Protein backbone atom coordinates (compact mmCIF):
# COMPACT_ATOMS: atom_id res chain seq x y z
CA UNK A 1 0.00 0.00 0.00
CA UNK A 2 1.38 3.37 -0.95
CA UNK A 3 -0.03 6.25 1.02
CA UNK A 4 -1.33 9.38 -0.67
CA UNK A 5 -1.08 11.30 2.58
CA UNK A 6 1.96 13.56 2.83
CA UNK A 7 3.87 13.27 6.07
CA UNK A 8 3.54 16.71 7.57
CA UNK A 9 2.06 18.34 10.59
CA UNK A 10 -0.52 20.41 8.79
CA UNK A 11 -3.55 21.83 10.52
CA UNK A 12 -6.79 20.06 9.79
CA UNK A 13 -8.52 21.26 6.67
CA UNK A 14 -12.20 21.53 7.24
CA UNK A 15 -15.05 20.42 5.08
CA UNK A 16 -16.08 24.04 4.65
CA UNK A 17 -12.62 24.91 3.36
CA UNK A 18 -12.88 22.00 0.98
CA UNK A 19 -16.21 23.24 -0.35
CA UNK A 20 -14.85 26.75 -0.56
CA UNK A 21 -12.17 25.51 -2.90
CA UNK A 22 -14.76 23.85 -5.05
CA UNK A 23 -16.97 26.85 -5.42
CA UNK A 24 -16.79 30.05 -3.53
CA UNK A 25 -20.22 31.49 -4.20
CA UNK A 26 -22.84 29.16 -5.53
CA UNK A 27 -23.27 25.78 -7.14
CA UNK A 28 -21.00 23.96 -4.70
CA UNK A 29 -23.93 23.06 -2.52
CA UNK A 30 -26.93 22.56 -4.76
CA UNK A 31 -24.87 20.85 -7.38
Amino acid at each position, binding site marked *: *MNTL*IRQKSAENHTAAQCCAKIS*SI*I*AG*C*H*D
Partner: protein
Amino acid sequence: MGVKGDLLMHRFSRYNIMGKIRDSENYFLMNPLTKSADILAPDKAQEIINKTYADTDELSAKGYILDQAEEERLYKLRYLDFLEERDSNEVQIFFVPWYECNFSCSYCYQEGYSREHKPLTEEVINAFFDYITREFADKKKYITLFGGEPLLAGSGARPRIQQIVTQAAERGIAIAIVTNGYNLYDYLEVLSRGVIREIQVTLDGTRPKHDGRRFLKNGAPTFDRIVAGIDGALERHFPVNLRMVVDRDNIDDLPGLAAFAIDRGWTKNPLFKTQIGRNYELHRCQADNKRLFDRAGLYEKLYRIIQEHPHFLEFHRPSFSVSRFLFDNGELPLPLFDSCPGCKSEWAFDYTGRIYPCTATVGKEGEEVGSFYPEVYKRDDIIREWESRDVTSIPECAGCGMQLVCGGGCGSVAKNRTGKLHSPDCRPVQPLLEMGISLYFNKGKI
Protein backbone atom coordinates in the same frame (compact mmCIF):
# COMPACT_ATOMS: atom_id res chain seq x y z
CA MET B 1 -3.83 -13.50 12.23
CA GLY B 2 -5.79 -13.10 9.00
CA VAL B 3 -8.77 -10.81 8.64
CA LYS B 4 -11.32 -13.60 8.87
CA GLY B 5 -9.98 -14.73 12.21
CA ASP B 6 -9.95 -11.20 13.50
CA LEU B 7 -13.46 -10.20 12.56
CA LEU B 8 -14.97 -10.72 15.97
CA MET B 9 -13.28 -7.64 17.34
CA HIS B 10 -12.01 -5.80 14.28
CA ARG B 11 -13.57 -5.34 10.90
CA PHE B 12 -13.17 -3.37 7.73
CA SER B 13 -14.44 0.11 8.42
CA ARG B 14 -17.86 0.83 6.97
CA TYR B 15 -16.45 4.13 5.71
CA ASN B 16 -13.76 2.58 3.51
CA ILE B 17 -14.13 3.58 -0.13
CA MET B 18 -12.30 1.47 -2.69
CA GLY B 19 -12.25 1.72 -6.45
CA LYS B 20 -10.20 0.89 -9.51
CA ILE B 21 -8.17 3.85 -10.69
CA ARG B 22 -9.16 4.89 -14.18
CA ASP B 23 -6.70 3.86 -16.93
CA SER B 24 -4.62 1.95 -14.38
CA GLU B 25 -4.41 -1.58 -13.06
CA ASN B 26 -4.14 -0.24 -9.50
CA TYR B 27 -6.82 0.60 -6.96
CA PHE B 28 -7.30 3.27 -4.32
CA LEU B 29 -8.48 2.75 -0.77
CA MET B 30 -9.68 5.71 1.27
CA ASN B 31 -11.26 6.28 4.64
CA PRO B 32 -12.60 9.79 5.30
CA LEU B 33 -13.19 9.07 8.99
CA THR B 34 -9.62 8.03 9.73
CA LYS B 35 -8.31 10.29 6.95
CA SER B 36 -6.25 7.60 5.23
CA ALA B 37 -5.79 7.25 1.48
CA ASP B 38 -3.66 4.67 -0.34
CA ILE B 39 -2.85 3.16 -3.70
CA LEU B 40 -3.10 -0.64 -3.89
CA ALA B 41 -1.59 -3.10 -6.34
CA PRO B 42 -4.20 -5.39 -7.94
CA ASP B 43 -3.29 -8.42 -5.79
CA LYS B 44 -3.65 -6.45 -2.56
CA ALA B 45 -6.94 -4.99 -3.74
CA GLN B 46 -8.23 -8.46 -4.52
CA GLU B 47 -7.28 -9.64 -1.02
CA ILE B 48 -9.34 -6.82 0.44
CA ILE B 49 -12.29 -7.57 -1.85
CA ASN B 50 -12.11 -11.23 -0.79
CA LYS B 51 -11.43 -10.30 2.85
CA THR B 52 -8.38 -12.54 2.82
CA TYR B 53 -5.77 -9.91 3.57
CA ALA B 54 -2.97 -11.71 5.34
CA ASP B 55 -1.25 -8.86 7.15
CA THR B 56 -3.67 -6.66 9.04
CA ASP B 57 -1.07 -4.51 10.77
CA GLU B 58 -0.87 -1.86 8.10
CA LEU B 59 -4.61 -1.83 7.50
CA SER B 60 -5.20 -1.43 11.23
CA ALA B 61 -2.53 1.25 11.61
CA LYS B 62 -4.20 3.28 8.89
CA GLY B 63 -7.69 2.80 10.27
CA TYR B 64 -9.07 0.67 7.43
CA ILE B 65 -9.61 -2.11 9.94
CA LEU B 66 -10.75 -1.12 13.38
CA ASP B 67 -12.78 -2.09 16.34
CA GLN B 68 -16.46 -1.28 15.88
CA ALA B 69 -16.72 0.56 19.20
CA GLU B 70 -13.62 2.59 18.32
CA GLU B 71 -15.15 3.47 14.95
CA GLU B 72 -18.35 4.65 16.63
CA ARG B 73 -16.37 6.69 19.15
CA LEU B 74 -14.34 8.31 16.38
CA TYR B 75 -17.51 9.05 14.39
CA LYS B 76 -19.06 10.85 17.37
CA LEU B 77 -15.89 12.82 18.05
CA ARG B 78 -15.59 13.93 14.43
CA TYR B 79 -19.27 14.87 14.39
CA LEU B 80 -18.82 17.08 17.46
CA ASP B 81 -15.79 18.69 15.80
CA PHE B 82 -17.89 19.25 12.70
CA LEU B 83 -20.72 20.91 14.65
CA GLU B 84 -18.29 23.12 16.50
CA GLU B 85 -16.55 24.14 13.29
CA ARG B 86 -19.86 24.84 11.56
CA ASP B 87 -20.92 27.03 14.45
CA SER B 88 -17.89 29.21 13.98
CA ASN B 89 -18.29 29.33 10.19
CA GLU B 90 -18.64 32.54 8.29
CA VAL B 91 -22.21 33.16 7.15
CA GLN B 92 -23.01 33.98 3.55
CA ILE B 93 -26.03 36.26 3.33
CA PHE B 94 -27.57 36.52 -0.11
CA PHE B 95 -29.59 39.59 -0.98
CA VAL B 96 -31.82 39.72 -4.05
CA PRO B 97 -32.62 43.36 -4.92
CA TRP B 98 -35.00 42.22 -7.68
CA TYR B 99 -35.59 39.15 -9.83
CA GLU B 100 -35.59 41.12 -13.10
CA CYS B 101 -32.88 40.25 -15.57
CA ASN B 102 -31.69 41.75 -18.84
CA PHE B 103 -30.77 38.28 -20.17
CA SER B 104 -32.97 35.56 -21.55
CA CYS B 105 -30.87 32.43 -21.01
CA SER B 106 -32.51 29.30 -22.32
CA TYR B 107 -31.86 27.35 -19.12
CA CYS B 108 -32.81 29.91 -16.45
CA TYR B 109 -34.14 28.07 -13.38
CA GLN B 110 -35.98 31.17 -12.15
CA GLU B 111 -38.03 31.54 -15.31
CA GLY B 112 -41.12 29.95 -13.78
CA TYR B 113 -41.05 32.08 -10.62
CA SER B 114 -43.94 34.46 -10.03
CA ARG B 115 -42.83 38.04 -9.64
CA GLU B 116 -44.10 40.47 -7.06
CA HIS B 117 -43.78 43.85 -8.72
CA LYS B 118 -42.76 46.31 -6.09
CA PRO B 119 -39.60 48.36 -6.12
CA LEU B 120 -36.73 47.90 -3.71
CA THR B 121 -36.93 50.88 -1.36
CA GLU B 122 -34.43 52.52 0.94
CA GLU B 123 -36.63 51.41 3.83
CA VAL B 124 -36.28 47.74 2.84
CA ILE B 125 -32.51 48.08 2.56
CA ASN B 126 -32.33 49.69 6.01
CA ALA B 127 -34.52 46.93 7.43
CA PHE B 128 -32.23 44.30 5.85
CA PHE B 129 -29.11 45.78 7.43
CA ASP B 130 -30.85 46.22 10.79
CA TYR B 131 -31.91 42.60 10.72
CA ILE B 132 -28.58 41.05 9.77
CA THR B 133 -26.67 43.30 12.18
CA ARG B 134 -28.92 42.09 14.99
CA GLU B 135 -29.44 38.47 13.97
CA PHE B 136 -25.84 37.69 12.99
CA ALA B 137 -24.19 40.01 15.53
CA ASP B 138 -21.62 37.47 16.69
CA LYS B 139 -20.98 35.90 13.29
CA LYS B 140 -18.40 36.58 10.65
CA LYS B 141 -20.43 37.34 7.57
CA TYR B 142 -20.49 38.69 4.04
CA ILE B 143 -23.24 39.69 1.66
CA THR B 144 -23.67 38.28 -1.82
CA LEU B 145 -25.78 40.26 -4.27
CA PHE B 146 -27.84 37.88 -6.36
CA GLY B 147 -30.82 38.10 -8.65
CA GLY B 148 -32.22 38.13 -11.26
CA GLU B 149 -29.40 40.37 -12.32
CA PRO B 150 -28.22 42.73 -9.59
CA LEU B 151 -26.22 45.04 -11.86
CA LEU B 152 -29.00 46.35 -14.07
CA ALA B 153 -28.66 49.56 -16.05
CA GLY B 154 -31.00 52.43 -15.40
CA SER B 155 -31.72 55.03 -12.79
CA GLY B 156 -33.78 52.69 -10.61
CA ALA B 157 -31.09 50.11 -9.97
CA ARG B 158 -27.80 51.95 -9.58
CA PRO B 159 -28.64 54.11 -6.50
CA ARG B 160 -29.95 51.06 -4.68
CA ILE B 161 -26.87 48.97 -5.38
CA GLN B 162 -24.73 51.91 -4.32
CA GLN B 163 -26.69 52.18 -1.10
CA ILE B 164 -26.15 48.48 -0.33
CA VAL B 165 -22.43 48.66 -1.13
CA THR B 166 -21.99 51.76 1.03
CA GLN B 167 -24.00 50.47 4.00
CA ALA B 168 -22.08 47.20 3.91
CA ALA B 169 -18.77 49.09 3.84
CA GLU B 170 -19.85 51.23 6.81
CA ARG B 171 -20.42 48.04 8.80
CA GLY B 172 -17.19 46.41 7.62
CA ILE B 173 -19.08 43.74 5.67
CA ALA B 174 -17.56 42.56 2.39
CA ILE B 175 -19.68 42.17 -0.74
CA ALA B 176 -19.69 39.43 -3.35
CA ILE B 177 -21.71 39.75 -6.54
CA VAL B 178 -23.23 37.13 -8.82
CA THR B 179 -23.70 38.91 -12.12
CA ASN B 180 -24.08 38.07 -15.78
CA GLY B 181 -21.38 40.69 -16.32
CA TYR B 182 -23.12 42.71 -19.00
CA ASN B 183 -23.07 45.98 -17.01
CA LEU B 184 -20.11 45.10 -14.81
CA TYR B 185 -17.76 47.62 -16.41
CA ASP B 186 -20.24 50.45 -15.81
CA TYR B 187 -20.62 49.46 -12.18
CA LEU B 188 -16.93 49.24 -11.28
CA GLU B 189 -16.87 52.79 -9.88
CA VAL B 190 -19.86 52.03 -7.61
CA LEU B 191 -18.31 48.76 -6.46
CA SER B 192 -15.00 50.42 -5.64
CA ARG B 193 -16.76 52.18 -2.73
CA GLY B 194 -17.12 48.85 -0.95
CA VAL B 195 -14.98 45.90 0.06
CA ILE B 196 -15.38 43.52 -2.86
CA ARG B 197 -14.77 39.94 -1.93
CA GLU B 198 -15.51 38.40 -5.29
CA ILE B 199 -17.39 38.97 -8.53
CA GLN B 200 -18.84 35.88 -10.17
CA VAL B 201 -19.36 36.27 -13.91
CA THR B 202 -20.55 33.68 -16.41
CA LEU B 203 -19.22 32.93 -19.89
CA ASP B 204 -20.63 29.84 -21.57
CA GLY B 205 -17.84 29.49 -24.12
CA THR B 206 -16.07 31.48 -26.77
CA ARG B 207 -17.90 34.35 -28.45
CA PRO B 208 -20.17 32.47 -30.90
CA LYS B 209 -21.12 29.72 -28.48
CA HIS B 210 -21.66 32.10 -25.56
CA ASP B 211 -23.69 34.55 -27.61
CA GLY B 212 -25.92 31.71 -28.79
CA ARG B 213 -26.82 30.80 -25.19
CA ARG B 214 -26.60 33.94 -23.07
CA PHE B 215 -28.10 36.86 -24.91
CA LEU B 216 -30.13 39.93 -24.05
CA LYS B 217 -33.90 39.75 -24.02
CA ASN B 218 -33.84 41.30 -27.50
CA GLY B 219 -31.38 38.63 -28.67
CA ALA B 220 -28.35 40.92 -28.81
CA PRO B 221 -24.90 39.40 -28.08
CA THR B 222 -23.20 39.89 -24.72
CA PHE B 223 -19.71 38.31 -24.89
CA ASP B 224 -17.61 41.40 -25.63
CA ARG B 225 -19.12 43.54 -22.90
CA ILE B 226 -18.68 40.77 -20.33
CA VAL B 227 -15.02 40.34 -21.29
CA ALA B 228 -14.50 44.11 -20.91
CA GLY B 229 -16.11 43.90 -17.48
CA ILE B 230 -13.78 41.08 -16.40
CA ASP B 231 -10.73 42.99 -17.67
CA GLY B 232 -11.87 46.11 -15.83
CA ALA B 233 -12.56 44.24 -12.60
CA LEU B 234 -9.13 42.62 -12.62
CA GLU B 235 -7.49 45.99 -13.34
CA ARG B 236 -9.16 47.32 -10.20
CA HIS B 237 -7.91 44.29 -8.29
CA PHE B 238 -11.35 42.82 -7.73
CA PRO B 239 -11.28 39.02 -7.46
CA VAL B 240 -13.15 37.44 -10.39
CA ASN B 241 -14.66 33.97 -10.36
CA LEU B 242 -15.50 32.95 -13.93
CA ARG B 243 -18.27 30.40 -14.12
CA MET B 244 -19.18 28.30 -17.12
CA VAL B 245 -22.58 26.64 -17.20
CA VAL B 246 -22.16 23.53 -19.31
CA ASP B 247 -24.24 20.88 -21.03
CA ARG B 248 -23.74 18.76 -24.13
CA ASP B 249 -24.35 21.77 -26.39
CA ASN B 250 -21.33 23.76 -25.24
CA ILE B 251 -18.96 21.42 -23.37
CA ASP B 252 -16.70 20.96 -26.40
CA ASP B 253 -16.13 24.71 -26.46
CA LEU B 254 -14.50 24.66 -23.01
CA PRO B 255 -10.94 24.12 -24.31
CA GLY B 256 -11.49 27.13 -26.59
CA LEU B 257 -12.64 29.28 -23.68
CA ALA B 258 -9.62 28.06 -21.67
CA ALA B 259 -7.28 29.12 -24.50
CA PHE B 260 -9.03 32.51 -24.67
CA ALA B 261 -8.57 33.08 -20.90
CA ILE B 262 -4.93 31.98 -21.04
CA ASP B 263 -4.18 34.24 -24.04
CA ARG B 264 -5.84 37.17 -22.31
CA GLY B 265 -3.58 36.74 -19.28
CA TRP B 266 -6.45 36.03 -16.90
CA THR B 267 -5.13 32.70 -15.66
CA LYS B 268 -1.80 34.27 -14.61
CA ASN B 269 -3.65 36.70 -12.36
CA PRO B 270 -3.94 35.37 -8.78
CA LEU B 271 -7.27 37.20 -8.45
CA PHE B 272 -8.79 35.10 -11.24
CA LYS B 273 -10.36 31.73 -10.61
CA THR B 274 -12.89 29.54 -12.35
CA GLN B 275 -15.72 27.15 -11.65
CA ILE B 276 -17.81 24.87 -13.79
CA GLY B 277 -21.53 24.86 -13.23
CA ARG B 278 -23.64 22.01 -14.52
CA ASN B 279 -26.82 22.91 -16.37
CA TYR B 280 -29.39 20.82 -14.53
CA GLU B 281 -33.01 20.71 -13.52
CA LEU B 282 -33.33 22.37 -10.14
CA HIS B 283 -37.06 23.03 -9.75
CA ARG B 284 -38.63 22.17 -13.08
CA CYS B 285 -37.98 20.13 -16.18
CA GLN B 286 -36.20 21.70 -19.12
CA ALA B 287 -37.70 21.28 -22.57
CA ASP B 288 -34.52 19.88 -24.07
CA ASN B 289 -33.22 17.82 -21.17
CA LYS B 290 -31.34 15.31 -23.35
CA ARG B 291 -28.52 17.85 -23.50
CA LEU B 292 -28.06 17.77 -19.72
CA PHE B 293 -25.27 15.85 -18.01
CA ASP B 294 -25.73 13.99 -14.79
CA ARG B 295 -22.91 14.64 -12.33
CA ALA B 296 -20.84 11.57 -13.19
CA GLY B 297 -21.40 12.15 -16.92
CA LEU B 298 -20.06 15.69 -16.67
CA TYR B 299 -16.92 14.54 -14.91
CA GLU B 300 -16.44 11.72 -17.45
CA LYS B 301 -16.45 14.37 -20.15
CA LEU B 302 -14.09 16.66 -18.22
CA TYR B 303 -11.74 13.73 -17.70
CA ARG B 304 -11.63 13.16 -21.46
CA ILE B 305 -11.20 16.88 -22.19
CA ILE B 306 -8.17 17.01 -19.89
CA GLN B 307 -6.59 13.99 -21.63
CA GLU B 308 -7.04 15.64 -25.01
CA HIS B 309 -6.37 19.25 -23.98
CA PRO B 310 -3.90 19.31 -21.08
CA HIS B 311 -3.82 23.13 -21.22
CA PHE B 312 -7.33 23.06 -19.79
CA LEU B 313 -5.85 22.44 -16.31
CA GLU B 314 -4.17 25.84 -16.46
CA PHE B 315 -7.65 27.31 -16.67
CA HIS B 316 -9.61 25.01 -14.38
CA ARG B 317 -8.77 22.08 -12.12
CA PRO B 318 -11.96 20.10 -11.45
CA SER B 319 -12.38 18.80 -7.92
CA PHE B 320 -13.31 15.17 -8.77
CA SER B 321 -14.82 14.86 -5.29
CA VAL B 322 -11.93 15.15 -2.79
CA SER B 323 -9.22 14.14 -5.31
CA ARG B 324 -7.90 17.61 -6.01
CA PHE B 325 -8.03 18.51 -2.33
CA LEU B 326 -6.00 15.43 -1.47
CA PHE B 327 -3.42 16.29 -4.11
CA ASP B 328 -3.17 19.97 -3.14
CA ASN B 329 -3.09 19.47 0.63
CA GLY B 330 -1.54 16.04 1.05
CA GLU B 331 -4.40 14.99 3.28
CA LEU B 332 -8.14 14.44 3.21
CA PRO B 333 -10.53 17.10 4.46
CA LEU B 334 -12.38 16.46 7.70
CA PRO B 335 -15.42 14.22 7.24
CA LEU B 336 -18.27 16.04 5.53
CA PHE B 337 -21.31 15.35 7.70
CA ASP B 338 -23.35 17.91 5.80
CA SER B 339 -23.06 19.49 2.36
CA CYS B 340 -26.20 21.67 2.64
CA PRO B 341 -25.54 25.13 4.07
CA GLY B 342 -29.23 26.21 4.13
CA CYS B 343 -30.19 27.94 7.42
CA LYS B 344 -26.73 27.12 8.75
CA SER B 345 -24.02 29.08 7.00
CA GLU B 346 -26.26 30.42 4.24
CA TRP B 347 -29.42 32.54 4.20
CA ALA B 348 -31.13 34.42 1.40
CA PHE B 349 -33.14 37.63 1.64
CA ASP B 350 -35.10 39.35 -1.08
CA TYR B 351 -36.59 42.77 -1.81
CA THR B 352 -40.08 41.62 -0.75
CA GLY B 353 -38.84 41.26 2.83
CA ARG B 354 -38.88 37.47 2.78
CA ILE B 355 -36.15 35.21 4.12
CA TYR B 356 -35.23 31.87 2.52
CA PRO B 357 -32.79 29.09 3.44
CA CYS B 358 -30.44 29.39 0.43
CA THR B 359 -29.89 30.36 -3.21
CA ALA B 360 -31.67 27.28 -4.50
CA THR B 361 -34.86 28.22 -2.68
CA VAL B 362 -34.79 32.03 -2.74
CA GLY B 363 -37.87 33.41 -4.47
CA LYS B 364 -39.60 30.05 -4.65
CA GLU B 365 -43.13 30.21 -3.34
CA GLY B 366 -43.66 28.24 -0.15
CA GLU B 367 -39.97 28.09 0.79
CA GLU B 368 -39.94 31.18 3.01
CA VAL B 369 -38.59 30.70 6.52
CA GLY B 370 -39.28 34.20 7.80
CA SER B 371 -39.57 37.90 7.09
CA PHE B 372 -37.46 40.96 7.86
CA TYR B 373 -39.86 43.56 6.42
CA PRO B 374 -42.44 44.86 7.08
CA GLU B 375 -42.99 42.29 9.82
CA VAL B 376 -40.07 40.58 11.51
CA TYR B 377 -40.54 36.91 12.28
CA LYS B 378 -38.91 33.51 11.82
CA ARG B 379 -40.64 30.19 11.23
CA ASP B 380 -38.62 28.38 13.83
CA ASP B 381 -40.10 24.94 13.16
CA ILE B 382 -39.04 25.03 9.50
CA ILE B 383 -35.67 26.54 10.31
CA ARG B 384 -35.02 23.77 12.82
CA GLU B 385 -35.82 21.22 10.14
CA TRP B 386 -33.22 22.76 7.81
CA GLU B 387 -30.68 23.19 10.60
CA SER B 388 -30.92 19.57 11.64
CA ARG B 389 -30.45 18.11 8.14
CA ASP B 390 -27.18 16.20 7.88
CA VAL B 391 -26.04 12.63 7.27
CA THR B 392 -27.06 11.67 10.81
CA SER B 393 -30.66 12.77 10.20
CA ILE B 394 -31.18 11.33 6.70
CA PRO B 395 -32.25 7.70 7.08
CA GLU B 396 -30.81 6.63 3.71
CA CYS B 397 -27.35 7.98 4.62
CA ALA B 398 -27.06 5.76 7.71
CA GLY B 399 -26.15 2.66 5.71
CA CYS B 400 -24.07 4.41 3.07
CA GLY B 401 -20.28 4.13 3.13
CA MET B 402 -19.93 7.31 1.05
CA GLN B 403 -21.77 9.52 3.53
CA LEU B 404 -18.68 11.31 4.91
CA VAL B 405 -17.56 12.45 1.47
CA CYS B 406 -21.02 13.06 -0.01
CA GLY B 407 -22.53 14.92 2.93
CA GLY B 408 -26.08 14.11 1.85
CA GLY B 409 -26.11 16.60 -1.02
CA CYS B 410 -28.50 19.50 -1.57
CA GLY B 411 -31.57 19.78 0.65
CA SER B 412 -33.59 21.63 -1.97
CA VAL B 413 -32.84 19.09 -4.73
CA ALA B 414 -33.65 16.23 -2.33
CA LYS B 415 -36.94 17.86 -1.30
CA ASN B 416 -37.92 18.47 -4.92
CA ARG B 417 -37.27 14.82 -5.73
CA THR B 418 -38.78 13.08 -2.72
CA GLY B 419 -40.98 15.67 -1.01
CA LYS B 420 -38.85 15.31 2.12
CA LEU B 421 -36.08 17.64 3.21
CA HIS B 422 -34.42 14.89 5.21
CA SER B 423 -33.76 12.71 2.20
CA PRO B 424 -30.54 12.32 0.22
CA ASP B 425 -29.26 14.00 -2.93
CA CYS B 426 -26.54 11.41 -3.55
CA ARG B 427 -23.21 12.36 -5.13
CA PRO B 428 -21.31 9.90 -7.35
CA VAL B 429 -18.35 9.78 -5.01
CA GLN B 430 -16.69 6.56 -6.16
CA PRO B 431 -16.60 7.16 -9.93
CA LEU B 432 -15.33 10.70 -9.39
CA LEU B 433 -12.53 9.42 -7.15
CA GLU B 434 -11.63 6.74 -9.70
CA MET B 435 -11.11 9.46 -12.31
CA GLY B 436 -9.68 12.14 -10.02
CA ILE B 437 -7.03 9.96 -8.40
CA SER B 438 -5.91 8.88 -11.85
CA LEU B 439 -5.76 12.48 -13.02
CA TYR B 440 -4.00 14.06 -10.05
CA PHE B 441 -1.84 11.09 -9.00
CA ASN B 442 -0.27 10.03 -12.28
CA LYS B 443 -2.71 7.19 -13.00
CA GLY B 444 -2.04 5.70 -9.55
CA LYS B 445 1.47 4.49 -10.38
CA ILE B 446 3.09 2.84 -7.38
